[in-house]
């Protein structure tokens, strides 16, 4: 044996060094891991199955079991009558590079839209509540596919040939809630002077975002497409209320004037009603 001795370190020093070593390694690993976890979250344009919780809670709750996707592909209405085999599933389980958190269910309406089954087979099988059965159950306790909110259809008027004056009502006719979710707005075509416009318009309270319209759209890249509701819909806030709409007024019934903040300071004077000066109303 060599007579070169290793420098002796005290037990205390050894413990502290070991501790520092482990904490340091843990911190390094944790930073890399947390950084990846942040990147691994889905693109904000991801469309989730019916009755999914808000994305943030959905990611927490989804255990990635795939029971929803299995229920979707094996639903009785999905069996091809000619071959007796199931057609491709609406719901896909995300793989690496799908730009969706790996292992979570999503769908791309342009490939396979959601057919809005009466019995919504994908939702009751969810073991974790990431697909919330209550959100598609009506007051009578029945499943109601009209209550689904997967996304919302958006029309891009520059590409939609109906806005050019060419007759096309593909999206209108394919819509499972025809004349409710998509209506046709009639207008006069001033260019020809003798034709009509039949422009599709989306009713945001009714549209579920099933995507049949996106799949049916005749343009090369669809002029009607589904976006997540959080992405596509604005919110007017409490400043603006439809004075003619009782339901809209209920929206701000609990509003407290003190909570409202403004960028510039509010005038403390009363409103001067100069337009009606000298007018006798009664």
């Amino acid at each position, binding site marked *: 044996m060599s007579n070169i001795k290793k420098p002796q370190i005290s037990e205390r020093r050894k413990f502290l060094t070991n501790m520092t070593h*482990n904490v340091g*390694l*843990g911190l390094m*690993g*944790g930073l890399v*891991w*947390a950084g*990846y*976890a*942040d990147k*691994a*979250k889905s693109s904000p344009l991801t469309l989730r199955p019916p009755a999914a919780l808000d994305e*943030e*809670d959905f*990611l*927490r*709750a989804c*255990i*990635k*079991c*795939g*029971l929803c*996707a*299995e229920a979707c*592909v*094996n639903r009785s209405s999905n069996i091809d009558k000619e071959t007796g085999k*199931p057609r491709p599933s609406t719901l*896909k*389980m995300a*793989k*690496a*590079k*799908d730009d969706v*958190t*790996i*292992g979570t269910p999503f769908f791309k309406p342009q490939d396979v839209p959601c057919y809005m089954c009466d019995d919504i087979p994908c939702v009751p*099988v969810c*073991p*974790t*509540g990431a697909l919330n059965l209550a959100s598609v159950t009506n007051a009578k306790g029945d499943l109601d596919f009209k209550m689904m909110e997967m996304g919302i259809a958006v029309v891009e008027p520059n590409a939609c040939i109906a806005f050019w004056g060419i007759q096309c009502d593909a999206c209108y006719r394919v819509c499972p809630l025809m004349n409710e979710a998509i209506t046709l707005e009639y207008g006069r075509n001033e260019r020809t002077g003798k034709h009509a416009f039949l422009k599709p318009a989306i009713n945001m309270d009714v549209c579920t975002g099933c995507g049949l319209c996106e799949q049916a759209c005749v343009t090369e890249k669809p002029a009607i497409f589904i976006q997540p509701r959080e992405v596509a819909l604005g919110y007017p806030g409490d400043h603006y209320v439809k004075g003619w709409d009782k339901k809209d007024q209920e929206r701000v019934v609990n509003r407290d004037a003190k909570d409202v903040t403004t960028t510039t300071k509010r005038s403390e004077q009363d409103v001067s009603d100069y337009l009606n000066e000298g007018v006798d109303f009664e």
Partner: protein
Amino acid sequence: MSNMKYLILRRMTQITLLFLYFSANAYGWHILSGTLSSSSIFGTIPLSDPFAALQMLASGMLLSFDVLLGAMIIALFYGIIGGRAFCAWVCPVNMITDAANWLRRKLYIDKIEKKVWMSRNIRYYMIVLALIVSFVSGLAAFEIISPITILNRGVIFGFGAGGGLLLAIFLFDLFVLKNGWCGHICPLGGVHSIVGKYSLVRVTHNSENCTLCMHCKEVCPETQVLNMIGKSSEDISMKECTNCGRCVDVCEDDALRFHIRNYLK
């Protein structure tokens, strides 16, 4: 062939389970549907991965009744009966790492290897880290990188780019560290070690029959659990033993066999 009995049984179990999962999606069978994260037997009995449930809890989501019950069934089964058997009998990644290990022996990689040392306790630190990262990121942290569910889902729904990770683990076990993934890093293996610590099914050693041939130590993926070989007759009681039974298979002297641990003695 007698020295491959448990190996063949294990492969049959692993492949049968994968096939049942696959059939639930492909043919609409209901025998075993879902994935290893959470499944259901005959569409009624829930099963859930206790580690996935813990991560869900850490990420800030309350557990549903089904997940809680499913995780309890799994934990009780392995806790009372199977020990760490999940790793050797169910987990599909075991087939990949066993293949790497086999090739490693065939290619004599151990003979030329530049020694890489890693603590076998990393898996336990990984558990803690996974829970912390889940808490911070609001997303079950191990479930987004787990090769187990990537392979499991790959078989059921198709692989995509996830196959790269599986190849990486194969190469890691082959060229970097013997039993690197399953024996050092995988936190799910750590969870199953802890869960199965007091299980009844154990391999037991009879040192009177032992001829010290050391075949058992050559094949064991967690060699440290065989520390009593040739020294004393006792159960292999360390929690990292996966109950894979390879040592029982290769033992030519009937010095190793499965038995039920007797706590009453």
